């Protein structure tokens, strides 16, 4: 156990998508835990299962997807354990948006174009019993939007989504997600759809907010810069599996998994110098027919005998630094 006081614990999670082309094994035995109060990051390429993992935490997997097996425990308070997989639909609905709130990638797509921002905030509160009615919620919406640093919140309450800029829409979405004072905030690439300047604002604001509101943040991103700036603990995902998990400094100082190293080399470091960025050869595997053994082995420069036969276990190399790679598992220590 990494955490003394975890807020969420996931054990051996499997998610499949039953498509016409075949069964996509999107999440393949993922286990991790998030400590209360930290910022936990999931990084990886598009399609590696970051979003699916985050949505599986409140069973937000829609048909044709299905959580195949796994255990998910949520601790709203220290010592109080809720088995997410055993909850009824109604019980899990009450947790979504109340204890565990989400921010999705594209704020324009998160809002219903036909309703005002105030209505969105109000309904989020009203259906969780935070306010008695939507009417009352609309009155309180300005307050919520002010918390999300929305400029001129009073008039924004009456605005429709198309009347706001992307950054303001994301503030509105953040406002909605915070309206019920959640304990865990899951931000799924919250700034990917926004301008760079707005990105910085939103991220700084999230950081500030986290301290003020005593939030736990699960941040999903493919931006290594953001990871360095925001995260306490990082999990690197590849093709539906966690391949490495470490505290953020440790990961940047001493990346172990060949995939993590590849990711690091693909990030530009020295502006102005004429260096070519390295890329990881090959492409993300088709998860209908995932490669046997380690899913990264076809692209791995260090692959050797067991890699294409047996899946490497996620083992702890140093304190809190786990990696799933035969390079380290073989001797049970450093290479």
């Amino acid at each position, binding site marked *: 156990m990494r955490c003394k006081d975890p807020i969420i614990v996931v054990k051996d999670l499997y998610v499949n998508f039953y498509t016409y082309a075949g069964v996509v094994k999107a999440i393949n035995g993922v286990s991790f835990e998030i400590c209360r109060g930290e910022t936990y990051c999931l990084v990886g390429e598009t399609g590696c299962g970051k979003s699916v993992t985050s949505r599986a935490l409140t069973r937000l997997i829609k048909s044709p997807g299905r959580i195949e097996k796994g255990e998910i425990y949520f601790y709203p308070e220290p010592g109080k354990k809720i088995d997410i997989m055993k909850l009824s639909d109604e019980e899990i609905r009450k947790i979504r948006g109340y204890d565990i709130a989400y921010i999705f990638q594209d704020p324009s797509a998160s809002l*219903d174009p036909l309703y005002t921002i105030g209505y969105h905030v109000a309904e989020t509160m009203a259906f969780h019993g935070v306010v008695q009615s939507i009417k009352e919620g609309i009155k309180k919406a300005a307050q919520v939007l002010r918390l999300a640093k929305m400029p001129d919140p009073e008039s924004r309450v009456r605005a429709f989504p198309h009347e706001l800029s992307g950054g303001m829409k994301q503030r509105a979405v953040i406002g909605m997600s915070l309206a019920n004072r959640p304990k865990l905030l899951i931000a799924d690439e919250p700034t990917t759809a926004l301008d760079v300047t707005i990105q910085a604002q939103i991220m700084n604001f999230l950081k500030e907010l986290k301290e003020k509101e005593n939030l736990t943040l699960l941040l999903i991103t493919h931006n290594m810069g953001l990871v360095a700036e925001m995260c306490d603990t990082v999990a690197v995902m590849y093709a539906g599996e966690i391949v490495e998990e470490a505290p953020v400094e440790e990961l940047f100082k001493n990346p172990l998994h060949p995939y993590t190293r590849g990711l690091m080399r693909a990030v530009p470091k020295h502006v102005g110098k004429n260096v070519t960025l390295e890329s990881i050869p090959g492409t993300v595997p088709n998860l209908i027919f995932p490669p046997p053994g380690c899913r990264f082995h076809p692209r791995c420069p260090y692959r050797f005998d067991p890699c294409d036969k047996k899946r490497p276990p996620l083992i702890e190399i140093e304190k809190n630094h786990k990696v799933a790679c035969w390079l380290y598992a073989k001797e049970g220590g450093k290479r």
Partner: protein
Amino acid sequence: MAELRRFIIRRLITFVPTLIGVTFIVYLIAAVVPANPARLWAGGQKANQQVVEMLIKEYHLNQPFYIQYYYFMKGFLENTMVSPVTGYKVWHEIKVYMPVTVQLTLISFVFIVLIGIPLGIISALKKDTWIDATIRVIALLGVSVPIFWLAYLLIFLFFTKLGWITLSGTPTPPYSITGIPLIDSILKLDWRTFAEVIKRYWLPALVLAYPGIGVIARLVRNTFLDALGSDFVDYIDARGLPRNQMYRHVLKNAMVPIVTVLGLQFGGLLAGAPITETIFGLPGIGRFMLTSIYSSDYLSMVGGVFVIALIYMTVNLIVDILYAVIDPRVRY
């Protein structure tokens, strides 16, 4: 609100050229048909030459058609234009026949809304089940079955076999507020007359509505499924809102295209009215226009076209206003 008023005024002004265009084209088509209308009006073969000449003079038939059109429109709008065949003023005829058509299309429209929309929603909610398949077949039949064929089939069933309906006369209450018994009976809370009207009109209205029901059911199914697949629905789930609230959002989003098509469907009803009225023996404006055509009374016919065009434009104006009420992104 000021914007809305400006929009309505702007649209009302466009009514004028549209009405002139519609009536002019129809008048042109009627006038270029090689026939001698004055002789026909005067009684055909046995026509008295004097009467024929009087008619030619009265209706300016020896002048080019656009001059004829001008005199027709002038007379029509001043309510001095008399039908050369029936001897009544054209507006009088319209006033007599219009209520029947209005009742028929209104009841039809209610059928489209009350049957078409729920069928589409059920179909979407039960997607890819036998219920969905059945509804889709019903809808497809509605779009493809000719209404006159269906009408005779149903007349055979309900009139000949079961005797549930009548095919002549229309209920007229002793009072008149708007001139339309259906609306008057509702205003007066006279449910007996209301029931009589419904009893006379339900089958023709249903037959007339069937293609529209098919179109709307298919459209509602697709737009509902579209809206159900939008990203904001995912976010509604992620916020833990209950199912009913989600459907509320979905339905409102699905309504935007549906309202537009409902407006167009009204035009379809008006266009289908002549056939339905003729088959079911309803003395409406559609049947009146058909008889006008048979007797070369194109003056009455163009008068009918004028009123129908006016109704159609008004309905679509209402649709455009509704459209902006539902969707805040629409600006006038």
